[in-house]
């Protein structure tokens, strides 16, 4: 798992759009909308209830990819594929999600402060 937490090229592409406030807004939006998605995933795993799991995984994957969350996106992609394949919530990779998510969020917050400085 040699993937970077953040693919800096994605951030550079965003910066290239020439709107200094854009990255800050995107990070805010991500933090705001991704938390309920992670909550959905966690409760699905705990309750062994697959309702909404696949959708939450997919949406979180897309959002994370947009901000260059390479490692998290890859993990989410694996989870999504396995859930789809086995039709079950018992997937070991799911247990690794919260840590990867928090790691990415912290990296984003760092990037945002670096930009604001």
């Amino acid at each position, binding site marked *: 798992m040699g993937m970077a937490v953040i693919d800096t090229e994605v951030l550079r592409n965003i910066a290239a759009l020439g*709107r200094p406030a854009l990255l800050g807004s995107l990070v805010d939006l991500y933090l705001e909308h991704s938390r309920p998605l992670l909550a959905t995933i966690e409760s699905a795993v705990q309750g062994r209830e697959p309702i909404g799991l696949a959708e939450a995984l997919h949406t979180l994957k897309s959002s994370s990819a*947009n901000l260059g969350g390479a490692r998290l996106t890859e993990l989410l992609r694996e989870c999504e594929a396995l859930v789809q394949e086995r039709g079950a919530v018992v997937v070991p990779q799911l247990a690794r999600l919260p840590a990867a998510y928090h790691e990415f969020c912290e990296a984003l917050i760092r990037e945002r402060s670096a930009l604001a400085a």
Partner: protein
Amino acid sequence: MTTPDRSVEPAPTVLIVDDDPGARLLLGTALEMSGFQVTSAADGAAALASFRAQPVDCIILDVVMPGMNGFETCTALRALPHCHHVPILMQTSLEDMESVNRAYTAGATDFSSKGINPMLLAQRVKFLVRTKRTQDQLVASEARVRYLAYYDPLTALPNRQALKQLLVDQVEWAMLRQSGVATLMLDIDNFSRINDTQGPAAGDAVLKEVANRLQHCLRDCDRSQFDAGAKATAGVIKDCVARTGGDEFGLVLPGVSTAEAADSVARRVQLTLARPLIIGDQEYPLSAAIGISVFPLDAADAEALINNADAAMHHAKKAHVGGMEFFKKSISARAAKRMSLESQLRKAVERQEFVLHYQPRLSLDTLQVEAVEALLRWPHPQRGLVPPDEFIPIAEQSGLIVEIGDWVLREACSQAKRWHDLDTSSWQVAVNVSGVQFRDGSLVRRVEDAIASAGIHPGGIELEFTEGALIEYSSAVSKAVTSLKELGVATALDDFGTGYSSMSYLRHFPVDTLKIDRLFVRDIASRNAGNAPLVDAIIAMAKSLGLATVAEGVETDAQWQYLRDRDADQVQGYLFCKPLSIIDLERWHTDWLLSNQDRGVGAA
């Protein structure tokens, strides 16, 4: 990033459909940077509402969304008006072939994977929109070409070509439903005078106003004439006005299948046009000649319908110059039939399709054949024998009769010679001459030529002409008859009694024989023989003038007896023999001689 066409083309619009607000913001920003005007929607339902309210040039659609998914949204969008050809780019996962296939099946134009560099995506969208615009321009220029080919730019009405196309469809429609379709062709009276005196701008204004009035002429009341079947398919039938030429217009009225219905529309058109037309401070009197043809009464296809209506219109124009022109019923059919027959007649002359039949004239005393009347027959290659009273008037009106008459003369003279050479009979051959043949003064020379080249005695030929010819071309006929008499050619006045039957005429025209018309002969022997005194008088008068008499159309023994009692000279008619071909006539003659021998009347 400004492109040269940015100033003329409005900014392209794009709709982003994604439930992820971050994705909407990122993509929206990238697209705005690329010159797009962006709207966005968080789900399928919002996307549909947005497009309905404000259609866009391109749509970017996410697949996984709450509520309707991207595929369902795509299908629903495609069903919206104006969304059929809008490029839709679906954001699928590249690794998922199945969703790519589903995207296309749902009607997507293109796909891209999520997370792609937003500026690249914006370029891709730009490319899609430009391709679409190029296509649109192509379609628009095609439509323009089509418009110019089928529409008149001045009045915005369909042109003649379009009218014809439309009529083809309407005839097909009428045929399927056993209904009709009327075509009216209309020509503005004295239009060139307006154009010449008031200038082309005034002329154009008149044409536009006529176009406008004609369009208002076609109202619901016309549709009341449609039958029930037509009403059920009201979407198919549509009255149409077209500008078919400079000052000519055409109307197609589907479902109008009778001359009466077409007549009422034509009258309404006349009334509408007759309203005073004021352009500037000038008042223009308006009227038009209208020609009408009705399918299936007057023609069997679109082209013939237009031609017939055109012919009728020209006929109407000729009949009343200027002023209000009322439409002429069924002229169209007559004119077209006439035109077609005339062209076939021309071909018949070229191909020498004519033949002569002969009907014997017998001496009332001896019942010997003394003369035969040559009668023109036209065995049409498709129609069979065409009745002479159908084609001879056309031959006369077109002047073809001169050439045909010449052929008849030569053929009759040659036949007289053949019979003379056979030595069995030296029959005089009677040839009918039309008044038209007297017109150019060459008839006598032509007769001389025919006699000379056949090598017959001039007295072997008799020329028959009618009272009508005598009256219409009196001086030419008078001169010709005198010359023919000098030449030694016999002459006869045909159909005597039907015209003026004036004694004074007969003094001016030194004919040898009077032929009493079949009309008078018909009822001479019946109980209420109204015409008998007239026949008596004609015979008596002829005798006093030293003229021979021939009774035509003798069909009964009683008629024959009556004429014999009155001392007429010759009889001709079905009682003895109908007009026959040469072979049949000769065969008949052989039999006739034998049966006369049996009756003991043959020796004279």
